């Protein structure tokens, strides 16, 4: 991409029992993956509403990972089976609307698959890096944003990543 320093923003919606724990295992095993991904924990993949995914895109996510327990292994028996039907439709729909497959990826990662978690995350990050920023979705949002590029800075302290705050 044109901006060399661009780093994609990746959100992962994961279930508490398998993928979150799998990610814990990746940590315990000191495996490495890119910092781009941030996890949002829900109890079960069955509880992941596809609208969360839209919301994350609205908030500038360049790629999204959704992951839960393998089929038959759901902590709640059947949550992921329902999720599977839901995801089938949602993924088909977004794909049809022109969102590339790589932007939204689904996987099953169990609590013992720390390595798989790392592989999955790395794949999402790499795929999204290759595709570049999710400009087309951003442009949906820019309709009324770009007109006023020079918003005044209220409070220097708001730049939260700046070290010398105060």
């Amino acid at each position, binding site marked *: 991409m044109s901006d060399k320093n661009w780093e994609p*923003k990746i*959100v992962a919606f994961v279930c508490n*029992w398998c993928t*979150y*724990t799998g*990610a*814990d*295992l*990746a*940590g*315990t095993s*000191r*495996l*490495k*993956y*890119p*910092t781009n991904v*941030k*996890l*949002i*924990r*829900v*109890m*079960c993949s*069955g*509880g*992941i*509403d*596809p609208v*969360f995914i839209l*919301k*994350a895109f609205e*908030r*500038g*996510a360049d790629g999204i990972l959704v992951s839960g*327990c393998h089929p*038959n*292994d*759901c*902590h*709640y*028996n*059947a*949550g992921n089976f*329902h*999720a599977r039907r*839901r995801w089938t439709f949602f993924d088909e729909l977004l794909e049809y609307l022109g969102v590339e497959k790589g932007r939204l990826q689904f996987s099953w990662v169990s609590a*013992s698959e720390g390595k798989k978690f*790392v592989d999955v995350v790395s794949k999402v990050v790499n795929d999204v890096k290759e595709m570049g920023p999710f400009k087309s979705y951003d442009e949906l949002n820019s309709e009324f944003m770009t007109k006023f590029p020079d918003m005044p800075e209220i409070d220097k*302290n*708001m730049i*939260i*990543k*700046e*070290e010398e*705050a*105060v």
Partner: protein
Amino acid sequence: MKIGVFICHCGENIGRTVDCPRVSKACQWLPGVEVSLDYKYMCSDPGQNMIKDEIRKKKLDAIVVGSCSPHMHEKTFRKAAVDAGINPFLVEIANLREHCSWVHDDIDAATDKAIDLVRMAVEKVKRNQPLTTIEVPVTKRTLVIGGGIAGIQAALDVANAGYEVVLVEKEPSIGGHMSQLSETFPTLDCSQCILTPRMVEVYQHPKIKLMTYSEVEKVEGFIGNFTVTIRKKARHIDESKCTGCGLCTTKCPVKKKAFNSFEENLAYRPAVYVPFPQAVPNIPVIDETVCTYYKTGKCQMCVKVCGREAISFDQQDTLVTEEIGAIIVATGYKLYNIEKKPEGSMIKGYGEYGYGKYKDVVDGLQFERIASASGPTSGEFKRPSDGKEPKKIVFIQCVGSRDDSKGFSYCSKICCMYTAKHAMLYKHKVHDGEAYVFYMDIRSGGKMYEEFVRRAIEEDGVKYIRGRVSKITEKNGKYIVKGEDTLASMPIEIDADMVVLATAMIAQTEASELAQTIGIPYDKYGFYNEAHPKLRPIESTTGGVFLAGACQSPKDIPESVAMASAAAAKAMVLFGSDKLEREPVVAKVNELFCAGCFLCKKVCPYGAVEVKEMKDRNGVVYKEIAYVNEGLCQGCGTCTASCPSKSIELAGFNNEEVFAQIAAL
């Protein structure tokens, strides 16, 4: 709202890759954050005291702790918060260790990410609702599934403590695989002799309700409050009348139609049978599939000989419902049948070594029966094909286990020991016989185990060859075993009279189905998963369900017994109090907007969603809506995602909280 942010260095674990002071400084500027601090070990007493002091001093409403995984210390920090006077559900953990410092190298990037994670947690905690734990009653009854040695032990332990037990066994008798064994290692005492008294004790125990020839059909409910439906299969014998005289079994004209599975198919059994003489209960079963009466409507020999009129051909399966507080799963194992198409098996055999083709290639349990004094050969070594005494036996270890390409990757654990035992038993009876053992490694960890193997080699002269067997071919009644002696680096050929395969212990055929019925996870082999491999090896991840014996992984008898007693203790811990506290992570319906499509009811895995009638002032029902039974809800949230109008929310993980996290990205 005043929020406190506490960043833990975790010694160097977080501090090495995440610049903790920078994180805490940056978080000071988040809206709502009153105080933001970092400390070496937040989970230590001084760390917790710091949190408590700040809560009291600054009158904080909620806290965010940036530390290790919530699975580690969420409870610790919640407790600290409660001590300082705030609701435990107003505590959020930002996982800065497992999800940040340990998985990243770049300090700048990891610190940035840590700030993001804390910010997300702050935004979530702002929306968190104070929740109170839910108390549920406990039914002080235990269900033990499986009547092998593990199930027997667990049932006896719980019953002896004074609690009621329901013991369910799918076979006509309890006893399990242990009852099939000839002798046990490393003491070589008789398996039946030590087991039978236990079986009888179970049968006579006033607190144990024994249900043999029965299977668990449905498990509903949750820890302390399970409702279990058990299918009692039709025995076609009236249990209340039968005296166990056995006349029917001896008079049954069906002689060679059904294999005797207790004898590992080395003998036949009649259509009405008791699996083995010491069976508990000593009540026969009629096998509908071979009984002449069920085929032709004639015969009824058993009816004629039974003086008690106990034969009941039209007996049907019955369903029994039991209220249960804790479940101990002790369903055991089976042997890997590597025959090419083993009947009824999910796992496809790979058919090497001529198993299933050559009659004299047998597996471990078959050899146990041949060696057993009560077995088909009355304890004399005779090979199945022609009944001759084998003069040369080859034992092959690790058949189907430790084998990535054709079998299973895991070590079957007990085969080294029982093969040594087999070879020893053979040598004790056939003094001029030769016994060869092909092994990969000898794994004999355990009290007196290594000594036992040495005895087989040194005293009994069993020949151990390190190497694998490539092929067994048959020639003139002999079995040519081709293999390699890897210590001598030589190919080797032995013309054996009989071959014994130490096939892998694998999960029961319906292990995964039962797991799904109960709602417990299992690994890729079908063995049940423990909640934690080190610290919670007895519990399944489902509350109130405990594991005992080989259903969790291959185990020998002492290990199974130990695990069974541990499971019993776990069940009793549960019964120690009258009420159970449950996390209040449950779904709740917005009654104003629920349209009553009941999609939530359809997707709920626990049947926790019920129909509620909404009535107007005149008592007329104006709509039917969903209602969540808090006792049954386990908090998965599948209902919340499926609700089209978003009129059902999961406490603790409600949509506003998730959205706040997304917004804080």
